[in-house]
């Protein structure tokens, strides 16, 4: 087996991995860095993010506003020390991207422009038309080419994380083109593999978003945190789940039911002003909007499409010129995939799975509980998203914490001796045999697609927008059976090189483990909070019992065990989470209360 020695191995070449790589080499030019990705870095799913990335710039905005929008938006399950660090560093990271060439949209005076997003008090979303993730990713990818210390392993599939004496010690990767295994020894390992949305049927995610990094850490004993919190984005294409950015609503788009009625006013998000009021109606948070859709559907007030029910995203009043300037990709998507010109007709949309709030737990310095292991981006649970992520925070997170991860990994590598090569080789050989097992298997009657599709359907029915105990239990049982059936998949492809069927089996193994962590964490959380909403008697938030992070612990074939950890609360006590007029009233009451307290 070909073996490499690096100071730092980064798994994943999306926004987070690239930002970490650049930070690591800038912080320690002597550090050797392996950037390992199963696709060419600019194919990573950061590319699909559309609307924008948060950073306070306006004089009427403040870090405290960004903090509060984030923490209340996360239904107080955020770690407030992490949110504090995050909001304080977003703007400098957005400016850093600007210095690297990111084509941010501008105001007439040449300064960067910002737009509104859901759940946001003041406009603070930096954007590059509606291709923000694309431009951020390409800017980072191209900038990374400046640094010779970053050695890329493009199209290498990481199948195992190696741990020695309680420390991360490297990774085992498969070169996709040849099927050859490569042992990459590293003193620090950064996991930056993105989310796991593909475990659900209708989702906005690319095919590569299979939770690999989460599963790598999980199987090595790192508990996955807050996995029950999965965000449904309210405006996606029926059937495929392709995303229509929240910026559609930030720019003034409306959501209408089959009667042309702005139904969100019936769900505590009103009043329905004709203009876009912040944190109200269409600019409410994603979880609430997706939940409102669910109710409309049951009331029979949605529109039937060949791929299920939908509501209308109406952009017509924005006019052709503004649509082409601000939302060009949305226009293309609507035209190419649906035959709809958004200037002339409303777009049918419905919620689809978009984002995994939970993941590998990290502290403010991106360190996972396993020494030498760092995690950043959607695969991490950095503590900033809580029970529902605020739109625009994930792209900013890649940069803010990507930089921290790179620097911390470099520092850790300098202070750490390498692992014992002989022991590591033994471990890598065993991991190689495990990864090759499905390729060499000669008996079995299952197909990848069957097991994968059953998993995705089961997750959708048991762990969707609203959840019931019985249905979650059924999903847990289904997943246990599917895990067993996964071991009986017989490949049609026996080739060594470019065997994507084999890699799909490995990905599906990751997905099933991650899905189980989600379903069991959901079942055990007997309350409703943010994106986790139950209808079986646990319809309210229960701070006394569940103002806690869930922690799913891997137990192999057995169901994961679920424990709990503390939420870091520094200065925002859990309050009423309200939007629209009710939200404004609650904010006013809060302010009055604060004045009374300070008078007392």
């Amino acid at each position, binding site marked *: 087996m070909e073996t490499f020695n690096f100071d730092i191995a980064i798994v994943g070449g999306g926004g987070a991995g690239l930002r970490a790589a650049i930070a690591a080499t800038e912080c320690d030019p002597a550090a050797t860095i392996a950037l390992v990705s199963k696709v060419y870095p600019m194919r990573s799913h950061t590319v699909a993010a559309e609307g924008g990335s948060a950073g306070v710039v306006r004089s009427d905005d403040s870090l405290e506003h960004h903090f509060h929008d984030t923490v209340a938006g996360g239904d107080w399950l955020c770690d407030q020390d992490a949110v504090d660090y995050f909001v304080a560093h977003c703007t400098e990271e957005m400016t850093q991207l*600007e*210095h690297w060439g990111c084509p941010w949209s501008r105001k007439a005076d*040449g300064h960067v422009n910002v737009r509104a997003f859901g759940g946001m008090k003041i406009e603070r979303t930096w954007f590059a038309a509606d291709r923000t993730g694309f431009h951020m990713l390409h800017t980072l990818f191209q*900038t990374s080419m400046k640094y010779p210390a970053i050695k890329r392993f493009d199209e290498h599939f990481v199948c195992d994380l190696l741990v020695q004496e309680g420390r991360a010690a490297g990774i085992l990767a498969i070169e996709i083109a040849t099927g050859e295994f490569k042992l990459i020894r590293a003193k620090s390992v950064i996991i930056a593999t993105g989310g796991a949305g593909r475990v659900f049927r209708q989702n906005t995610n690319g095919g590569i978003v299979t939770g690999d990094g989460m599963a790598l850490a999980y199987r090595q004993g790192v508990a996955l945190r807050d996995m029950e919190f999965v965000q449904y984005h309210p405006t996606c294409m029926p059937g495929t789940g392709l995303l229509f950015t929240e910026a559609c609503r930030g720019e003034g788009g409306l959501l209408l039911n089959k009667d042309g009625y702005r139904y969100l006013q019936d769900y505590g998000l009103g009043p329905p002003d004709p203009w876009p009021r912040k944190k109200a109606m269409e600019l409410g948070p994603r979880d609430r909007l997706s939940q409102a859709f669910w109710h409309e559907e049951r009331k029979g007030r949605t529109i039937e499409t*060949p791929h299920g029910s939908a509501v209308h995203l109406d952009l017509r009043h924005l006019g052709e010129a503004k649509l082409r300037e601000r939302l060009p990709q949305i226009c293309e998507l609507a035209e190419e995939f649906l035959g709809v010109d958004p200037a002339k007709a409303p777009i049918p949309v419905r919620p689809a799975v978009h984002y995994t709030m939970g993941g590998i737990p990290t502290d403010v310095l991106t360190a996972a509980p396993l020494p030498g292991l760092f995690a950043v981006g959607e695969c991490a649970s950095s503590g900033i998203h809580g029970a529902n992520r605020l739109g625009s925070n994930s792209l900013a997170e890649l940069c803010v914490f990507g930089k921290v991860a790179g620097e911390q990994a470099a520092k850790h590598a300098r202070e750490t001796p390498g692992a014992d090569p002989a022991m590591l080789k033994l471990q890598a050989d065993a991991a190689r045999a495990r990864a090759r097992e499905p390729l060499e298997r000669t008996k079995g009657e299952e197909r990848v697609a069957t097991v994968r599709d059953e998993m995705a359907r089961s997750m959708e029915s048991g762990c969707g927008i609203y959840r019931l105990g019985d249905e979650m239990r059924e999903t847990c049982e289904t997943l246990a059976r599917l895990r067993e059936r996964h071991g009986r998949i017989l490949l049609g492809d026996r*080739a060594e*090189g470019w065997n*994507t069927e084999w890699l799909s089996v490995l990905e599906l193994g990751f997905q099933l483990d991650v899905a189980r962590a989600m379903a069991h964490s959901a079942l055990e959380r007997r309350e409703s909070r943010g994106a986790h909403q139950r209808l079986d008697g646990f319809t309210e938030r229960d701070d006394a019992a569940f103002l806690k992070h869930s922690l799913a612990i891997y137990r192999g074939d057995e169901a994961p065990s679920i424990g709990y950890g503390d939420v870091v609360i520094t200065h925002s006590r859990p309050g009423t989470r309200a939007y629209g007029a009710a939200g404004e009233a609650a904010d006013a009451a809060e302010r009055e209360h604060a004045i009374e307290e300070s008078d007392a």
Partner: protein
Amino acid sequence: MPDGTAATRTRTIEMQVMRYNPATGNAPYMQSWTIPFTDDMSVLQGLQYIKDNLDGSLTYRWSCRMAICGSCGMMIGGVPHLACETFLRNFLPGPVRVEPLEHFPIERDLVVDATDFFTKFERITPWLVPKDPKPVSEGEYLQTPAQLEEYEQFSHCINCMLCYAACPQYGLNKDFLGPGLTALLHRYNADSRDNAKAERMELVHSEEGVWSCTAVGYCSEVCPKQVDPANAVNRNKTQSAIDWFARFLPGRK
């Protein structure tokens, strides 16, 4: 696109797909499947149907499904397209012929070897070299919407390489930098914040640079993002000519 009934009406279409596995030593060949499809199904979804249900060894790249990641470029009906945004209904009554991108070595089935593209990529200085470097703490470089517009279109390249498959010159001469990377090079040269144009123009002037282009313009026709690489090449031909004549002006080196 079709009304609701057409999207659910299932018909069948024949897909002819090029197969090749260098490990077997056999020459490339075409294999056919007749698959059920609805009017909203893309060629990518057709390939996925085959892989999931008929032949797990069929090999292709894909990810985002929404024409932004640039993975699924292939020849469809002899023309370079992204499979995810090319619809089976457009090829009725069939068959739909699907082959790997032209002008690249095949790694397996529809997967081509992109090494050449990425090797050249690093040579174009694909990053901003700031005119007046300043620390991040001093804020952003100013750029008006008009200055942004000068290069914005050229920054839309998703590196899908369709234009390389379309370019007859690249087919003949692999040293040619090619349309997409010339557009990307121009993206930085045309950026009001950048200061490395002179360095990049060396490459533009050179034998691998724009003068290899014979102005066929097919690259811009197939570009899924309206980057118009032919335009970038032309602008650089003009610039290159000006630079060349400028050498003879007094006071210039």
